[in-house]
């Protein structure tokens, strides 16, 4: 199986084992340009681990992850980010001691070296970009607020904003609507629909209604392997999936 160059992301035979336990086991899948791929699966299926492997947070035991024909497995986390992969964590991870503005500013893709950071200036381009992103994630009123004082949902949005400002080609979101109120959830769906327009996205999600709304294709994981893959309708009809996941 050769990676087809027109895939944005190629994952082949990806395996990781923790002291003998294979959390991800010979996994292969492909993500195309502008595709929204949703990964579903029961708890412990290895969903989050897959994202960790792609973005370099966990080192793979074997296999291949190619992004725009670059091998990601040999790269450091920050290099992967610069290659164009953004990652949002399951629990909202923002810098609580800093303001919303500063949170976004840190993610602004400039001045990422030590001396770059030391000489970084807040120029007009930075400020207008931050304003723009803040408006996208509904936080334009809260720019000077410390992130610690945001609600859970607002923190999720802020983290999404921190990804957007980097303008990644591949966005990976781990349960973006978990723990949100109904109103927030609606707003988030709207937000996601807007931001997945011009990029590829991998989303982990449990909420089937939400998945149906956004997914181009769905991959079902079970015990570290692909159980089924295809359109939402396709996987919902797959008996294997029904048995392990949707059936109960």
């Amino acid at each position, binding site marked *: 199986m050769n990676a087809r160059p027109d895939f944005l992301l190629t994952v082949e035979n990806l395996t990781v084992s*923790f*002291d003998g*336990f294979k*959390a991800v086991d010979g996994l292969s899948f492909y993500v195309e340009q502008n595709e929204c791929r949703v990964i579903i699966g029961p708890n412990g299926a290895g969903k989050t*681990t897959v994202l*960790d492997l792609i973005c370099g*947070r*966990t080192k793979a035991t074997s296999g291949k992850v190619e992004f725009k024909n670059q091998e990601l497995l040999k790269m450091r986390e920050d290099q992967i980010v610069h290659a164009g992969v953004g990652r949002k964590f399951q629990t909202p991870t923002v810098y609580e001691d800093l303001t919303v503005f500063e949170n976004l500013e840190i993610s602004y893709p400039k001045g990422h070296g030590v001396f770059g950071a030391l000489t970084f200036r807040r120029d007009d381009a930075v400020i207008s970009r931050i304003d723009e992103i803040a408006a996208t994630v509904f936080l334009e009123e809260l720019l000077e607020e410390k992130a610690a004082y945001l609600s859970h949902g607002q923190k999720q949005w802020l983290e999404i904003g921190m990804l957007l400002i980097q303008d990644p080609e591949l966005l990976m979101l781990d349960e973006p609507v978990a723990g949100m109120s109904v109103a927030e959830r609606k707003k988030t769906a709207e937000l996601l629909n807007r931001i997945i327009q011009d990029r590829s996205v991998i989303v982990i999600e449990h909420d089937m209604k939400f998945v149906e709304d956004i997914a181009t294709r769905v991959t079902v994981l079970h015990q570290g392997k692909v159980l089924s893959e295809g359109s939402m309708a396709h996987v919902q009809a797959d008996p294997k999936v029904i048995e392990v996941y949707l059936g109960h």
Partner: protein
Amino acid sequence: MFADYSMGELGAIFAMQGFAGLILFSVFVLMALGLAIIFGQMGVINMAHGEFMILGAYVTYLTSNLFSEYMPALFSMYFFLAMILAFIVAGALGMFVEWALIRHLYKRPLDTLLATWGLSLIMQQIYRSVFGAREVGVTIPEWMMGSLPLTDTIEIPINGIFVMVLATGISIAVYIMMFRSSWGKQVRAVTQNRVMAGAVGINTERTDRLTFGIGCGVAGVAGSAFTMIGSTGPTAGQLYIVDTFLVVVFGGAASLLGTIASAFSISQAQSIMEFFLSGSMAKVLTLLTVVGILMLRPQGLFALKLRK
């Protein structure tokens, strides 16, 4: 350096040197076990560990005075009672310290380091005020201070054997407590997931207190045993702190087996180097090697690869 010696002599010396390495190993195990429980299981950096050891030594000193004053006939046996008392006193103080100090700091491990350093200063000053600045001479029963001639040329120090037996005994006891008792299960449960452990009905506060107390108690026993081989003075505890932490960290903090393995490798390295080099250089080289290996393998010798 060996040209002038017969094979028999060399054999005897190497046997004794091997034994010296084992004694050092046992000393390290005794020093480190208490800390391995506290640091490894609870994540608390107890810089006052050495002072808890010295507390055990002072308890031994007091017990020996008591016996020679009131029960001279039983003097040769006082050491066993002294070790039990050392465990109780150091453990009780440990539980008090946990209640007064440590429990407020579980979320700030680096701060426990500072607070317990402060505690160690206070304990040193109290020792100085109570027992005087000078080291006290702990009289060890005569039978423990001799040596056991195995052959004509090989002599094994009895206190060395005693330390080895004690180290083995305490290791086994700690192992049983940690892996075979319900307390051990609770400790491990609390270590792994405090909230969940609390939710299933484990009294996490009591478990913490007991764990810290037992760690300190083990330190007290170690200190009691060290009156046979070292000095008992207000600042003697500080001599142990670097070695102790390195042993625990080198072993992979969360693993008791790792602590023992690391005590073994460090003691053997040091003992062998001491034999071939001058003492100071041996110490420097041992420490450098340990630090070097830790830089290459920061998780220590025995660490589980965890799924994050």
